[in-house]
């Protein structure tokens, strides 16, 4: 089995991260924003795994597991908030949440 070069892994991670960021900034629907955050987290995860495999250390995988756990927690809280928000406003448009403007 040939090792995937680290640069490829990092590029994949960077692409995933950028796609997630773009989604986060461009989508208005809060659900898609959550999804975009997941994609960004996975991009970071790929980078960790790639780095771990490059140096043959388990830390990369361990951190990826941490990220998974954090993502699961974030999604559960985030989805609960989204449900409450939708219940109250009948919309998931992020632009409608501008009451906190200074």
């Amino acid at each position, binding site marked *: 089995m040939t090792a995937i070069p680290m640069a490829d892994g990092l590029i994949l991670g960077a692409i995933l991260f950028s796609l997630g*960021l773009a989604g*986060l*900034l*461009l989508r*208005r629907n809060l659900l898609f*924003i959550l999804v975009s955050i997941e994609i960004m987290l996975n991009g970071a995860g790929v980078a960790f795994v790639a780095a771990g495999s490059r140096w043959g250390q388990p830390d990369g995988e361990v951190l990826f597991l941490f990220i998974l756990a954090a993502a699961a927690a974030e999604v559960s809280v985030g989805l609960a908030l989204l449900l409450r928000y939708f219940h109250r406003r009948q919309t998931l448009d*992020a*632009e409608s*949440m*501008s*009451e*906190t*403007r*200074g």
Partner: protein
Amino acid sequence: MLRLLWLVPALPFASSLVLALVRLPRRAVAWIATSSIAASTIISLLVAGSFLSTPPAAFAYTEALWRWFDAGSLHPEIALYLDPLSLIMMVVVAFVSFLIHLYSTEFMSGDDGYNRFFAYMNLFVASMLTLVLADNLLLLYLGWEGVGLCSYLLIGFWYRDSDNGRAGRKAFIVTRVGDTALMIGLFLLFHRLGTLNIQELMRRASEQWPIGSSAALAAALLLLGGAIGKSAQLPLQTWLPDAMAGPTPVSALIHAATMVTAGVYLIARTHVLYALAPQAQFAVAVIGAATLLMAGFSALTQHDLKRVLAYSTISQIGYMFLALGVGAWPAAIFHFMTHAFFKALLFLGAGIVIKSLNDEHDIFRMGGLRKHLPVAFWTFLIAGCSLAGLPLITAGAFSKDWILWGAYGAANGSTGLWVAALTGVLLTSLYTFRMIFLVFFGEQHSQVTYRPGNAMLIPCLVLAFLSIVGGYMKAPFASFLGTSLPWNSKVGAIPIGETASGGIAAAVFFLGVYLAYVLFLRKPNLTMAVASSRAGRVLHSLWSSDWAMDWLYDRLFVRPLVWLANSGKSDLIDGFYSGVAWLNKTAWRGASRTQSGRLRWYAAGIAAGSIVLIAVVLFL
């Protein structure tokens, strides 16, 4: 018994503290406020009784309470000084204030600020009693300022109307002009004579300063400046008519017992100084004569019942100044006493009229109240006669005749001053009976909606009694007061006697009544015709605006000052500070724009910030 003297100012002061700090039900407030003044009155009467039955040495008693402070060679004491002059002032002030407090318990009964009102009133009386009893000029100045403060608080008592607040400020600021002169006078006296104790001061002044010396003249003129401000004399009289913005009992208190007579008292107290400065004393007489004439003319044209009375007070205080100026010292104090009785009564009667007509102030919309308010009518009539000087019966006639006689026959008297005072008598009876005829006679224009109760009528009856009986006290009064305030007689022959002068004044009084009857009751059309002629219109507007003094002061002082303040707002230094303020404001506006509340912009900001940070770490 004399040792109780300190209680006289202390009781009202204590009760004002209690009323200011503790929230009490209305009944308790009225009781505490009135009974403290009543106790103060009783104690002052007891003190007076013991003073008269066993006079202390040299007719003066000093009660030193404690040393106020030590500063270099200045050690003023909190000490009270009682001699015939301060005794008379004390008794009159306490007694009249008590009656006014009793009246106020009913007059103010519907008011929200009941507590506040009586706390201020008590403090007012306490300050005045301190002023009167003070042993040194510094303590007197404390009372003086206390009186000024309370007048400000009470004139602007109904502060929700901004006009009242303005009237209060005007009273405070205009009297402040005089107070400043008084303060400089105190500095001068202390600098030259090294003490502020009044008796010591008078002794040293007469030892060290020859008659006519410039130091005595300067000191006397500076004290006169203070007296003019407080007593509303020319040219600082403009605050008093506006002071009518306060509740009516306050006007009664200011005019009869406290505040405006303080200036008269100050001059009488320091009369030795004026004897050393004849020019200053002459100035007092001239100011008094001019004021009594000008205010008399102004009173003729007023429409507001209380303003008529205000100008009448200015004019009567002018009489007192005239008496002081010519050296008829006891006549001034006697007129102070009778004036306290009848002017308090006039204001209390005016209060009844105004309250029963549902806050109507215009005398041309009153009329015919004789039958509806009989007690108010009779007491008001007695007070009016006393003010105008109905001969032989009323107190005012005795005191005014005495002053008239003094204007001729006292040390500095002259024919000119006598004629001015006599013209004043004509004006007084004219405006007094104009007021009485318009308010109580003729057709009724307004409905009576309120009947005064006992708390308002009893003070009126007592004061009416005193407005008549007060005059018969002249002989004992003169001999008693003579021990501390001698009458300065004229040297040489006097062409007319005291009786003749009084007789002429009586004739002038009746002439004034008759003129008022013709002009305002029988033929009001004639008056209208005179007033609407060209000269009449000019005179009317001149008099009703107090000889345009307010207008003049507005042009001379207020506007230049406002202009200066406005132009000072945009100078270099202020420009710097307002530049800083502008910068802050702009920065704030920019920063607050970033708080758009848009989630995705925040996220973009975080992303951009992270990119910048990473770039810094990587490339720098």
